[in-house]
């Protein structure tokens, strides 16, 4: 590390929003040639800090120094001019435009009002050759894979010659192999003297990529460390503020009979193509069957078709405890013991404007337990929901609080409480801890293990490999709508599953 001024210093940054302090007296710095990781839970203030750096927010207090000089960044174009680049978590690409057009967007054209795509394409080729970023400038972005889109985001930053690059959860949608490739590219960039700010909550990635790590919790810096002096458990503790069990203990459970039997299942996706292609699956009582795969390989459609939200194609078998579910409506499926924790929890799992208690009884509100001749029995509802809020440790001001005002983790607990109250025979849990804080995730994992002990067959669909490997008894890997392999989780490695996920061994 050099003795000259750091590339970036953020000193005493405070940013308040009505009712919340997003950043409080945060110090953060970055040198050229290093990867400095910003680690923290959702809502810890990472994004706010980076939005301040990128000119999207103005800090209430504190100062930003770039290359030793104070700078006031009030818009993304000023940030770009100061050679700050950002790869956003949600790709900032226009799908209908070509790669070259996306890269050229916002840059002054050499031909005045006319676009200058030929010379842009040429620079893109130079950049992709020198950095190992294979991209074709003339292709429309919607045709590209997620990994390719990621590379374009990096090309965009390099095209603008960013010296400081913020990567906001860049690995969220990548396969393990794509992550490895990305890290090679990022290392090449630090070798050139660029400084990288890496935002992630995947602890093993943070450990392998970072030079330094700064942890945020509730808007404040709670620690700064280097990978050689810490561990995943310690980092998690700094993020949450207490000791956390990253993988739950699983008691030995004797697998029961087949509860869910799927044969020859084919499903069309939203675009009319085969999203699920001739799948066979068995899930046993007392078993968690993990479904791993890169997003968009048919997992969502698989969950939806079993839950009854989507129609299968042609003849197939979907049986729960020996009874066919094909053609049954969602109510019938629930009555037969199916519970569903959906991926899009605010779209399919809960109604945001409804109160916590309304969402908790949403499925049973017409049953005799909570209503009599069409009128709701508020006393019974209140007792039931108060008990659930306690039992599931939902952090909420009350059972009459609108659900949308809770955190992601607590909304998920509300949904879990409702779904597990039904004492399911089959539980479909899609991305149960995505966007959920570590504490709630730990709690949700314990509940899933508890269901396993009571003999529930669980289909756990997740893009989080640690979660899948830690919780499942067996792991089915999906690629391009097919199950390309089923592995016993005792024998599973990240690398092996990663190869299956990429379709390499298919």
């Amino acid at each position, binding site marked *: 590390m050099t003795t000259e001024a750091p590339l970036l210093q953020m000193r005493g940054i405070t940013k308040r929003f009505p009712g919340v302090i997003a950043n409080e007296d945060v110090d953060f710095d970055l040198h050229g040639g290093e990867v400095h990781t910003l680690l923290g839970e959702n809502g810890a203030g990472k994004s706010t800090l980076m939005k301040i750096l990128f000119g999207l927010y103005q800090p209430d207090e504190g100062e930003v120094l770039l290359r030793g000089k104070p700078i006031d960044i009030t818009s993304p174009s000023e940030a770009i001019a100061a050679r700050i680049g950002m790869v956003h978590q949600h790709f*900032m690409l*226009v799908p209908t435009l070509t790669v070259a057009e996306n890269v050229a967007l916002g840059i002054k054209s050499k031909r005045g009002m006319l676009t200058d795509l030929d010379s842009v394409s040429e620079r893109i080729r130079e950049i992709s050759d020198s950095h190992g970023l294979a991209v074709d400038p003339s292709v429309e972005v919607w045709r590209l894979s997620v990994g390719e889109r990621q590379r374009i985001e990096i090309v965009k930053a390099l095209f603008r010659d960013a010296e400081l690059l913020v990567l906001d959860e860049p690995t969220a949608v990548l396969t393990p192999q794509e992550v490895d490739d990305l890290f090679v590219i990022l290392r090449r960039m630090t070798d050139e003297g660029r400084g990288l700010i890496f935002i992630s909550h995947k602890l093993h990635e943070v450990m392998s990529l970072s030079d330094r790590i700064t942890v945020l919790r509730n808007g404040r810096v709670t620690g700064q460390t280097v990978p050689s002096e810490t561990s995943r458990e310690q980092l998690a503790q700094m993020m949450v503020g207490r000791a956390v069990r990253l993988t739950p203990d699983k008691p030995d459970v004797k697998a029961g009979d087949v509860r869910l039997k799927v044969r020859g299942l084919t499903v069309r996706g939203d675009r009319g193509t085969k999203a699920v292609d001739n799948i066979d699956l068995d899930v046993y009582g007392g078993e968690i069957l993990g479904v791993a795969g890169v997003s968009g390989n048919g997992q969502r459609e698989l969950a939806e078709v079993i839950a009854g939200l989507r129609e299968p194609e042609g003849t197939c078998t979907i049986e729960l405890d020996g009874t066919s579910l094909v053609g049954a409506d969602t109510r019938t499926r629930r009555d037969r013991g199916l519970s569903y924790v959906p991926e899009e929890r605010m779209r399919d799992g809960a109604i945001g404007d409804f109160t916590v208690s309304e969402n908790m009884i949403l499925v049973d509100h017409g049953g005799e337990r909570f209503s009599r001749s069409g009128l709701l029995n508020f006393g019974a509802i209140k007792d039931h929901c108060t008990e659930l809020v306690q039992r599931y440790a939902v952090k909420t001001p009350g059972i009459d609080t609108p659900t949308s005002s809770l955190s992601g983790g607590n909304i998920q607990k509300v949904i879990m409480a409702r779904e597990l109250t039904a004492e399911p025979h089959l539980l479909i849990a899609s991305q149960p801890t995505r966007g959920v804080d570590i504490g709630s995730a730990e709690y949700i994992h314990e509940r899933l293990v508890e269901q396993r002990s009571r003999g529930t067959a669980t289909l756990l669909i997740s893009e989080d490999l640690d979660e899948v490997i830690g919780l499942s008894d067996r792991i089915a890997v999906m690629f391009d709508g097919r199950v390309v392999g089923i592995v016993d989780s005792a024998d599973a490695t990240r690398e092996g599953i990663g190869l299956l996920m990429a379709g390499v061994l298919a």
Partner: protein
Amino acid sequence: MSEFFTLSVLVATLASGIRLATPYLIAALGETIGQRSGVLNLGVDGVMLLSAFFAYWTVLETKNLWLGVAVGIVVGFVMGIIYGIITVFFHATQGISGIGIFLFGLGFSDLMFQKQVGTPRPIKQLPDVSIPLLADIPHVGEALFQHNLLIYVAFLLVPIVTFMLKRTTFGMNISAVGENPQAADSLGVSVAQTRFTAILIGNTMAGLAGAALTLELGIFQANLTSGLGFIAVALVYFGAWRPVGVMGGALLYGLVGATVVQLKALQVIPRSVSDIASMAPALLTIAALIVLAGRVKAPSALTRPFSRH
């Protein structure tokens, strides 16, 4: 029926179909630009009525046709500023504010007409301009190359708008803010400025369309457009947000309309059902929209106001 299939009737039908298509085409091209930037303007009809009235009134008072055209354009531009402020800076819901603009245009143009003119008086129509050589081609020349200047302008706008959308940085910015405004913003493209400019262009073209309509007909009356602006909005969907497709839709609409008029004049369609027959173009549009439903993709951010928070 055989009377219809004579050369002279077919040529006349084609010529009047092109004439009828023109206001739709100009307005729909303008609306295409706005929608490509993510802004739906349901007020097109109201803007057309206002600009038609002011263009008509100007010509009535000054006898200057081109001053009338200019006034129509200016009225469209001013309405663009108003609609731009409402939707871009106040983030108003586009569907409802567009209907507000329509109702304002409908009422205000009628009010002004009642106060300032009263009974409809005809004005000069735009003169036809024959294109040298081309107009002399038998039949084709009569159908295609003996029209007033605004009709040529309308069809010239098709390649111009296409070029603007595909080959200029501004066109690229329009596509970007219409598909993914966050992405555009993150690259320093001003979403507000791009959309505001697109709205200004679109409304100015609606103004031109209104002027073209009244000066083509040589008359103004209450609700002169009778929903023409709404058809123009539908034609944008019909044309899948592409100028050439929009032109196809406008031509189809104009030609079917002209055919119905001819068939009525020739009494092929009996008088008793002529009102029903007049619905043909609208029914055709609805049918086409049903067939096209789900096959074409609207700009992703259409009708969605943009703000950073």
